[in-house]
């Protein structure tokens, strides 16, 4: 069975600030990031759909210890956003100094920025054709 919405397509759109996902014909719920089967009911009866990119922060962390090759990024803020359509999407919060981020951001509304930051990839991940041009990072700003 062919994959309805691949990482390659999702990634290409996200780099331009468009968030793609899947809408289930059986339960009407959304899946994002995409998968073979509906996140909610497991159906493969899915259509590609564009999501609004708005939601609220459910949790977060500010990271101070980098992975190999990512020293220049720290500190940075990772947020988990509950999108208005239901799915959770992990991204970066870019319009607040990471050193000022506290629990107060939980519940705040955010919106996907017009362009996403991109991770070029590294020795372990750069070979894949699906990630040509790098990995888009969902990049959120306060709404």
């Amino acid at each position, binding site marked *: 069975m062919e994959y309805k919405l691949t*990482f390659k397509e999702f*990634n290409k759109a996200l780099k331009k600030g468009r968030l793609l996902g899947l809408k289930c014909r059986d339960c009407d719920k959304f899946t994002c*990031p995409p*998968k073979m089967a509906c*996140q909610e009911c497991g159906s493969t009866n899915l259509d590609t759909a564009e999501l609004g990119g708005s939601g609220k922060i*459910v*949790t*977060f*962390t*500010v*990271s*101070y*210890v*980098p*992975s*190999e*090759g*990512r*020293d220049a*990024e720290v500190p*940075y803020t*990772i947020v*988990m956003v*509950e999108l208005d359509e239901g*799915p*959770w*999407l*992990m*991204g*970066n919060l870019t319009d607040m100094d990471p050193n000022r*981020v506290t*629990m107060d951001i*939980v*519940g705040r509304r955010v919106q996907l920025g017009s362009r996403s930051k991109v*991770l070029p990839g*590294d020795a*372990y*991940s750069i070979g894949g054709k*699906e*990630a040509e041009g790098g*990995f*888009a*990072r*969902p990049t959120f700003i306060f709404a």
Partner: protein
Amino acid sequence: MRKVAVVGTGHTPFTFASEKSSVELFSEAAMDAINESNLKPKDMQALYVGNVLGDFSEGQAMVQSYCADDIGAFHIPATRFEGACASSTLAIRDAFIWVASGFYDVVLAGGVETAAKMGTPLATRTFAMAHDSHYEYPVGLTFPGFFAMLAHLYSSKYGVPLQRLKEQMALVSVQSHRYGVHNRVAQFRKEITVEDALTSFMVCSPLQLYDCCPFSDGAAAVVLASEEKAKQLTDRPVFITGIGQSSSGKLSSQKDYAPRIRAREVSVKQAYDMAGIKPEDVDICELHDCFSIASIIAAESLGFAEYGKGGELWEKGEAKVGGRIPINVSGGLKSKGHPIGATGASQVYEVVHQIRGQVEPERQVEGVKIGLTDTLGGDGVLCNIVLQKGW
């Protein structure tokens, strides 16, 4: 299905960067397990080895085959299990199934890792390979980052103020270090205070250094045998009476349950049901405390505390030796160390030794008959084993 017993155990010290190779470390643990079982390497009918990152730490893939050859168990089927930090629990679970089924009578299972050798940047990178590489790693997710997000979620979802949660988390680490002092195989053998924990440097908010387990090198192994075979070998068999395993997707896919790890609840129910026991029947538990918050979350899903109240086990001293449910009195991953491919086998080793009454007196729990292990790999592999005194 036949009954299956642990008849031999081996465990190297867990350490900072080792001067031994993965094959050497595993062979040491394996030979100790085989010698204790009163068998010979040639009696091993199969070898199951947990190993995650040998490809990166030593440029060594397929370590299982070299381990079999190294100990003189020539040409036996040898299989590597990769389930991130739960790898060797998966290896032991499968070894159990093959012996229980009657296909084999004796299987050697365990695991090895040399993660400390890699140094922090490469180890952080390769551990993060057990997250979703396309959808969650690019934003900068690392292992402490994952549990840091669960900690903030725990605080907001259960209404436990962050300051109180951090104090509970500190108590988890303080207890682990207190017991690690007495464990001869532990990586850290020093006590810490709540103040040490709360003033250590920030790794991923709200997790500070002492909320995090170390990178470690080491190996552990066990010999499993059928009941009939075990009777010929030992008068003190420890039976595996329950097993469970489950899986789950990336963190965003776990939205309906987080900060609970649903896979743990599915897995441990399998193990409890198979053994015919309930959480209150467990005398000792070794659970997956890769981070202090992980202990609190695990204790709840294993049935030892209500959701949102796991930290009270440590506040009230219920997780200590002599408490209601002694947890990680080995020092846990935090103090004993966490060579990821070996961790599950190390937990089984600890529980077997507790049941036999063979651990250091300062951390021996009296009268242990039933023990539980709990191992979490990445964000999605869960494996539980119930062990019971067989004499």
